[in-house]
């Protein structure tokens, strides 16, 4: 059920239903690497740090696993934004996975911009296992940026009556 993103995440977010209706609540898919960023998110939780509930976390073994396809698939299937987070350069559990991804995704970001799609729909961060506070901040920033952009309409397609073009 792609394209239903606008309605999604209200129940967990805003205080009153009325406010939720007014304000767009983005849905963000976050790919976190197992060794740093996921642990960082865990720490944020254990430390009871507050951050917006708009993200849906998918744990991957290494940010190097994130191919541009996964980012595009998330956007195509209704996410308003995508966040990829891994270890700081030099700290990758697999030595260079995050460096590979950085090159790959930087080009994707640049292409997104070239197509006229807001580049901020796709964001990247380095968060280590000890940076619970940074993780909360990253999520806050990411959500605010996407909130400003509004719903992800460019990947949406409306079929005509019998689907023919």
């Amino acid at each position, binding site marked *: 059920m792609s394209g239903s993103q606008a309605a999604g995440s209200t129940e967990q977010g805003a205080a009153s239903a009325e406010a939720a209706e007014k304000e767009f609540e983005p849905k963000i898919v976050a790919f976190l690497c197992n060794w740093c960023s996921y642990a960082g998110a865990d720490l944020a939780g254990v430390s009871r740090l507050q951050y917006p509930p708009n993200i849906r976390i998918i744990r991957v073994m290494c940010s190097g696993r994130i191919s541009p396809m996964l980012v*595009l698939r998330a956007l*195509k299937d209704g996410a308003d934004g995508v966040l990829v987070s891994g270890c700081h350069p030099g700290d990758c559990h697999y030595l260079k996975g995050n*460096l590979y991804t950085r*090159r790959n995704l930087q080009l*994707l970001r640049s*292409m997104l911009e*070239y*197509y*006229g799609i807001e580049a901020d729909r796709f964001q990247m961060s380095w968060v280590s296992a000890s940076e619970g506070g940074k993780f909360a901040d990253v999520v806050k920033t990411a959500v605010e940026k996407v909130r400003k952009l509004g719903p992800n309409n*460019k990947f949406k397609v409306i079929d005509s009556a019998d689907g023919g073009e």
Partner: protein
Amino acid sequence: MSDEKIREEAKKALRERGLKCVIGWSADGTPFFAETEEDADKLSFNEHCANNLVTYLTQEVRSQRGKTRDGKDKIVKPVGIVVRGCDSKALRLLLNENILSRSEVFIIGVPCTGVVDKRAGDVLYRKCVKCAMRNPVVYDVLASDQVPEDEKDYSEVEAIENMSPEERWTFWEEIFADCIRCHACKRSCPVCYCDECLLDPTDVAIRPDTTADEKAHRPRWVERSVNVRENLVYHLARMPHLAGRCVDCGECERVCPQRLPLRLLTAKLEKDVKKIFNYEAACEDGQKPLIAMSKMEDENEFIM
């Protein structure tokens, strides 16, 4: 003049090197496979010879590979090819990526001053108006003298970069609405050599031992439906796969039956790769792939 040289070299190589065939163009500009010395007399190069033949080269070499009954590698007869400057760069990339080995190919280079678009009434292809790769970069023999080259021209890409995001989106949305995903761009691309393409739901490699599980859970990255969204993802996802590999030969744009300006994508990609990573596809023999050259000190600014 170059025709004679091409024919002569092709004949010589067919005779002396035991080539399977020489891939070239016939006088009408269509691809031609010369298997005998007699055939070789039909080889030609003129302004109508627009195909990038490197795609065929991979096909001809690969079709010979495999194992014999007693488990030995089959003998691969070398294949000859006639290449222009842009083609030769694509060929060099394949050599760098070990898709072909240098001993499997015999290369006749033809410096080129541009080829014409039959559909548009025999005017030069846009890629040929200003071209920075007129002379072959990898070859065994050259069929004519080298010609002067131009600076790479990115003005069309820059024009789009200078648009507002909304203008850019409108521009591309209109283009992608017209794509019919016939896959001609992908099938003709000399560096798209995978057996199975994840962007093409019609192209799945199934072997007799592929399990039901594998087939059932194979992701469909792009649906078969043809609409702006699927087309957008198709053309977006193609780019990272071509990063540091696409030599901007323009074959995709040439074959597109809808005349989509696909080189605006590949040229932009090339420009970015150059600007951000100071890397140029196939600029030297034995070059490592772009991603493998990732460095600690790569740009980090866009990362939080």
